């Protein structure tokens, strides 16, 4: 293993879960999400000597998001019968409900809206940074976010609401 590979492995192990989840939020597809995360890590490794002391995670995130945004023309597939990790039964039920709600509402958004929602509200990036990372204007980020949130509101009650209603 070359010098720096150990650091990269440590970085990859720490970053993988979030990268894969972000990709899942953008695609609704676990298989594609893992592929995208792997692609992002390959490209991050290829630039590792340059970015290791900078913002490696930010670099990997930008690679991931751009990779998925540029791949918008490929059909998105949904995998409704996904595996769930071993958890307590109640937790599993809650997560399944939340995941279904999330998949449904994110599925109503365009690829760009999904990307903006994930960058803004999952990664908590400011609008200006979202604009830079997607090579679009801040105005477009604002208007698209607003449109996306309108769609979310129109999509109906959240899982949390459903759970409260069942109690």
């Amino acid at each position, binding site marked *: 293993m070359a010098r720096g*590979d150990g650091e990269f492995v440590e970085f990859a192990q720490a970053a993988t879960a979030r990268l894969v*989840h972000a990709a899942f939020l953008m695609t609704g597809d676990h298989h594609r999400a*893992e592929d995208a995360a792997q692609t992002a890590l390959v490209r991050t490794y290829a630039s590792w000597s*340059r970015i290791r002391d900078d913002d490696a995670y930010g670099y990997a995130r930008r690679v991931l998001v751009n990779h998925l945004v*540029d791949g918008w023309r490929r059909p998105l597939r949904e995998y409704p019968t996904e595996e769930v990790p071993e958890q307590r039964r109640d937790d599993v039920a809650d997560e399944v409900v*939340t995941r279904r709600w999330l998949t449904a509402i994110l599925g109503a958004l365009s*690829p760009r809206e999904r990307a903006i929602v994930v960058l803004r509200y999952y990664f908590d990036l400011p609008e200006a940074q979202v604009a830079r990372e997607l090579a679009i204007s801040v105005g477009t980020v604002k208007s698209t976010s607003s449109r996306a*949130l309108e769609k979310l509101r129109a999509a109906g009650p959240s899982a949390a609401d459903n759970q409260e209603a069942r109690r």
Partner: protein
Amino acid sequence: MNELDRLRDAMRATERSAPTLDLVAVIREGRRLRTRRRIAGVGVATLATALAAIVVMVAVGARPGEPPPVDRPPPVAVSPTPKSEEPTPPPSTPPPKPLGRIVDSGVRHGADQRVYYVVQVSVPGQPRVSIGLAAGRRAPDGTLTTDILVNDVEGADRSPGFHQIGYDERSAAAPVPAFGYFVGPAQRIVGTVDGRQVDARLARWSLDKQVVIFWFEPAELTPGQRLDGIIARDGSGRRL
């Protein structure tokens, strides 16, 4: 809790433990990619501009704080894999040779023409990928300088539909209008950006008329600006 907070919570609550990615494969592929970037960086430069070759090599392989457009894979060239991780010495690799006729876009950079042309590529383990599309400049004396080369890195380069789209990376001496190719009977290709529709210019590849080379006029789509969507239509307006 408002809708936005619920969305945030839901996105976080559905996080799972990290899947097991094959990091050995990641490192192996990352090394290959790094090598290809370096070789391609050398390959895209003309012999007359050795200094520019080094600049392009750095630009393709390393852009501080800004990853390259990642759906457009790095150009691929065939060469023995160097054992060293140091950059390959410039510039012994000849520029890619056009296959078929060169397409003049009508865009001018001073005296140079913006041109597009198909070149041969080789991607390890991908026997059905043998061509890529280059954006270059042709000088009055006919000298070609390749700015960006895009090619598939998996699948088949002649599969129906859109293939890789190349965007300006600010690594070339002149801005590169967005370009790509579509395989099929497209008569019209329309991109969408910020809710606006932009028609692409089209030209068929002389060696395979199913390959439709397209590009966007810089006045219509600023080089480097990414499309939100793109569609192709046949002669009767049907979406392909």
